[in-house]
């Protein structure tokens, strides 16, 4: 059913709506206008941009994978089991979505930093440190990205008609078989959406990463961090890096449009 208005829309809505659209369109035009299109290929394959691209690729994909491995069972537990404090846990899990990432980074620092609650005994025992390592970036990325996967999947598990699982059980399939053969395929589209969303969020992560893992070129410097640094020294590199992030984000949004934004 189409909700489109027939005829000319009211002038005032047309005017304000257009201005509203400009808020988003103009910055992109600004970015494109400063892009050194000719030297773009070179910029993207050498120097700090190339290094940041490598770090970002590794850390964002790792964070997406980690979110999947840990977030899928967590979403299932939140959706399908009942335990004391479940609602509180759910709120805590989704907290990074509204928390300023810097605060998240600081929290990670106090827990897993050199002098952190777990970080200190861990360092004393093994000499391993999260901060200033690529592991720190992955952890910070996972912290901010996993909630997207968890809430997407939890909603999918909740909205799944329990009759399908009951039918599978009545045919003699045990609980693990039911999960693998029925539940998982049925939430497949949401699973894919959750992973892509988590990955996109990890890719754009800035605050928690710089607070917790620092900004070391080639080790913890991701694309957003490189943009921030390059703005003060190498404008062309900053523009090129920004363009990469815009392109990736826009692609993700266009692909996920139907699955995610219409759902919520």
């Amino acid at each position, binding site marked *: 059913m189409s909700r489109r208005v027939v005829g000319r829309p009211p002038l005032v809505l047309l005017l304000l709506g257009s201005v509203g659209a400009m808020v988003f369109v103009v910055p992109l035009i600004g970015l494109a206008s400063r892009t050194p299109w000719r030297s773009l290929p070179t910029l993207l394959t050498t120097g700090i941009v190339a290094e940041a691209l490598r770090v970002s690729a590794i850390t964002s994909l790792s964070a997406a994978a980690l979110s999947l491995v840990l977030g899928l069972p967590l979403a299932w537990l939140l959706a399908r089991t009942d335990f004391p404090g479940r609602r509180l846990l759910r709120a805590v899990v989704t907290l990074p979505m509204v928390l300023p990432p810097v605060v998240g980074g600081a929290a990670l620092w106090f827990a897993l930093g050199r002098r952190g609650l777990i970080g200190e005994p861990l360092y004393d025992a093994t000499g391993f440190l999260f901060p200033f390592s690529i592991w720190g970036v992955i952890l910070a990325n996972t912290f901010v990205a996993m909630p997207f996967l968890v809430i997407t999947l939890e909603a999918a598990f909740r909205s799944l*008609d329990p*009759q399908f699982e*009951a039918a599978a059980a009545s*045919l003699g399939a045990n609980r693990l078989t039911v999960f693998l053969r029925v539940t998982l395929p049925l939430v497949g589209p949401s699973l894919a959406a959750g992973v892509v969303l988590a990955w996109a969020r990890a890719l754009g992560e800035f605050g928690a990463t710089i607070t917790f893992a620092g900004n070391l070129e080639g080790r913890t410097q991701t694309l957003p961090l490189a943009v921030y640094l390059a703005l003060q020294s190498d404008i062309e590199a900053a523009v090129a890096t920004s363009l990469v992030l815009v392109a990736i984000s826009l692609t993700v949004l266009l692909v996920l449009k139907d699955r995610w934004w219409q759902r919520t």
Partner: protein
Amino acid sequence: MNQPHMNQPHMNQPHMNQPHMNQPQVNRGLRAQIGVDRGDFTLDLPLSIDPGSTLALLGPNGAGKSTAVTTLAGLRPLDRGFIELAGRTLDRADGPGHLHHLVPADQRRIGVVFQHYALFPHLSVIDNVAFGLRHGPADGRINKQHARTIASQWLERLGVGSLAEHRPSEISGGQAQRVALARALVVEPPMLLLDEPLSALDVTTRAELRRVLRTVLNDFEGPRLLITHDPTDAFMLADQICILEQGQVVQTGAPEEIRAHPATPYVADLTGLNLLEGVSSGTTITTASGATLSAATSAAGPVMLAIRPNAVSLHPDEPHGSPRNTWATTVTGLEPLGDTVRVQLGQPLPIMVDITPAAAVDLDLHIGSIIWAAVKATEVSVSPS
């Protein structure tokens, strides 16, 4: 009375003739006492279904039918009572503090056909049917090719062989119901549980599927439980009917018994359906008793007729109006049922009619009265038998 010792063997006789009473493991039927307490709702349902017999659990929405299904299927534990299938205890709860024994859903092996079929949307029709063979109990799993062969035989048997590669979203409700039946039957369960199998279908498909169901039920050797809110389904398909209202059994018995002697006005209303066999040609039906009736829908061959008792009107003289069917008959029975009086009519069309007590007085009805009956053709529902 003077020979008490002679009575002794006599009194023991019934026990000796019914060995299953002492040795429940011999019985291949279902024996259950389902007790569920949920807030202010209480379900108390004794069930006993012999192998090869169909029991219809009939009741309105909210009577506790769905709760009964979930306890039998193993989706929720009993609060009180027990469930035994073929001598195997599936669940037992003797009240708080007692040992609780619960066989999980996947080990019960009850063939369930769910209300909305619950076909797996991500699998083709044939893979839906093959599911239980491939992913069922670990000791019985067979390979994909073999499973698909058996599945396709069942699909053929239920008349949907050509749909094997379709997705559930691409087939109609009636076809989905046949696939759901095939999926439940293919694993050869010891019991069949049909949850509102016809409720989601339109009238035409429903009559057709009822015939399919009758064949399937007749061929199935274990106990069969049919959950329904539709008296027509219950009367046409079941050997025994158990009527449930607000979690309590109102009446249990054979269909004729319940129709003849409804225990409460509610049962009378629910089950008063007149069912007749006949042969249809176009919209004209000749009943087994020799009467001729007009119906609104046309059919050919043997049919079942259903006429609601409150769809028939009684008149002192021959009525002249829109009803297509009018005939003179004799009153052979009168039974007051609360707000209504159930009148049994004699030949040529022995049916029951519900009228108000006031009308019974006005017509001066008594057994043996000669009376005219009328029923509109649209009130005569026909389904092929």
